[in-house]
């Protein structure tokens, strides 16, 4: 199936998010703010990591801000945590485009391990607790891109350009995969999310097309190698690219946690 249903849906949502950010410029009153804190049709929404940094660094507590952050936490727990990375984040959209270019150039195929983003999250929280400097909010390419869109603050885009250059030439998708602390935060939520990618081992022909399409391919290893019935939920960004590419439809959306059946751990019995 060449028609990338999920790919098109996802790209549409990503572009809609940018349109939403830019909508106040067109005089529309549906959206205010950016991905750190916003108001969508009167509903206050807040980035939970930005909330934590303001709380720890600025020692301010506003109940409505906590509630709007909890609203976002609840939303992403239900819809898969790092769905944010795949569907909402403008940096994700840009680095994906850069990744296509990288594939053409054939550069920088090595990269860092996925689990590094937990450490960068820990670093951000540690720094803000000790020094009061909201480290991620300072460097956040998400904030830089949204302020470039809304307020035409273009100079800090240099940082985004630097990230793109590194991803293009040195290490594949290294910011989004391994370094972004917000990705680390959402991957902790994603581990508890009911929305997962299921794997039907009987259908899998081990063509490895999914591995080539997946931006965080480590999440497929437990399924492909040990026949886990579900893809590793924490780091999966729910981009559904594997659903689009799998020729035998061995991957599907699966709701709720499915434990590993006893047979499946043994590759000999698992129908490999």
């Amino acid at each position, binding site marked *: 199936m060449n028609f990338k249903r999920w790919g098109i849906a996802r790209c549409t949502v990503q572009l809609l998010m940018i349109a939403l950010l830019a909508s*106040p410029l067109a005089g529309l009153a549906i959206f*205010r*703010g*950016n991905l*750190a*804190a*916003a*108001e969508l049709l009167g509903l*206050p929404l*807040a*980035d939970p990591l*930005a*909330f934590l*940094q*303001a709380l*720890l*660094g*600025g*020692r*301010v*507590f*506003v109940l*409505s*801000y906590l509630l*709007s952050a909890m609203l976002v936490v609840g939303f992403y727990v239900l819809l898969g945590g790092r769905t944010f990375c795949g569907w909402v984040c403008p940096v994700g959209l840009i680095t994906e485009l850069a990744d296509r270019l990288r594939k053409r150039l054939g*550069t920088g195929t090595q990269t860092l391990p996925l689990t590094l983003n937990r450490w960068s999250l820990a670093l951000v929280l540690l720094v*803000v607790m000790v020094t*009061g*400097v*909201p480290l991620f*909010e*300072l*460097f956040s390419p998400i*904030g*830089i891109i*949204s*302020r470039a869109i*809304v*307020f035409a*603050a*273009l*100079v*800090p885009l*240099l*940082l985004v*350009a*630097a*990230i793109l*250059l*590194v991803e293009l*030439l*040195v290490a594949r998708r290294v910011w989004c995969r391994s370094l972004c602390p917000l990705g680390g935060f959402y991957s902790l939520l994603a581990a508890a999310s009911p929305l997962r990618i299921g794997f039907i081992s009987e259908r899998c022909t081990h063509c490895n097309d999914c591995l080539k399409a997946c931006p965080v391919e480590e999440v497929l290893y437990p399924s492909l190698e040990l026949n886990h019935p579900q893809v590793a939920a924490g780091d999966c960004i729910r981009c559904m690219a594997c659903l689009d590419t799998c020729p035998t439809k061995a991957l599907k959306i699966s709701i709720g946690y499915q434990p590993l059946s006893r047979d499946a751990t043994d590759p000999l019995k698992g129908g490999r």
Partner: protein
Amino acid sequence: MDSDTTNTGISRRLFLKGSILTPLTLALGGAAISAVYLRPTQARGFYLRPPGAIEEPRFLAACVKCGKCAQACPYQSIVMAGGEAGVGIGTPHIIPRETPCYLCPDLPCVKACPSGALDKQLTEVEKVRMGTAVIIDREGCLSIRGLRCEVCYRQCPLIDKAITIENRHNTRTGEHTIMEPVIHKDKCVGCGICEKVCVREKPVIAVQQRVTEQKDFYEF
């Protein structure tokens, strides 16, 4: 290309990539980061924050840089700092000489702030304390030189409270009155309207950082 011993397995392409592009990338990235962030905070001077801003070190962390205050401001007085602000990147501030704060009675910027960086306990415009006006160039001030100007006084939203006119004898001419604008720090909200309207090319009155009450080291 004569023997295998000279072939290190590194192609020309890989060599170029490794020796030119990687350092170039790192240099560009490093330059971008240091240009934006690694300048001393004091060197940047005073940023006039929107009404209700909490004390600066906490403000820098409490502000989540969402820009809602700037979007709420009907005069577009609030602008978001770019990379030149260093650790203040993306934070809102007011450049009074361009557009001062016109002190909306309902303080829409404070209402828009989600994170508490602008304190919602502030509800009265007269209690705003963003900074304080200071006559920074007495020799340049037309009123102090004995001419009739007093534009800052007339335009001050807290006329006769934050700025008053003190009359005194003009000893230079011997027969006129100097009508000197005097700022009262305890009433001045720091909106910057005086700085905006000052008729001189470079304003002789400007909003500066408020100095908190100092404990004197000797008794008067």
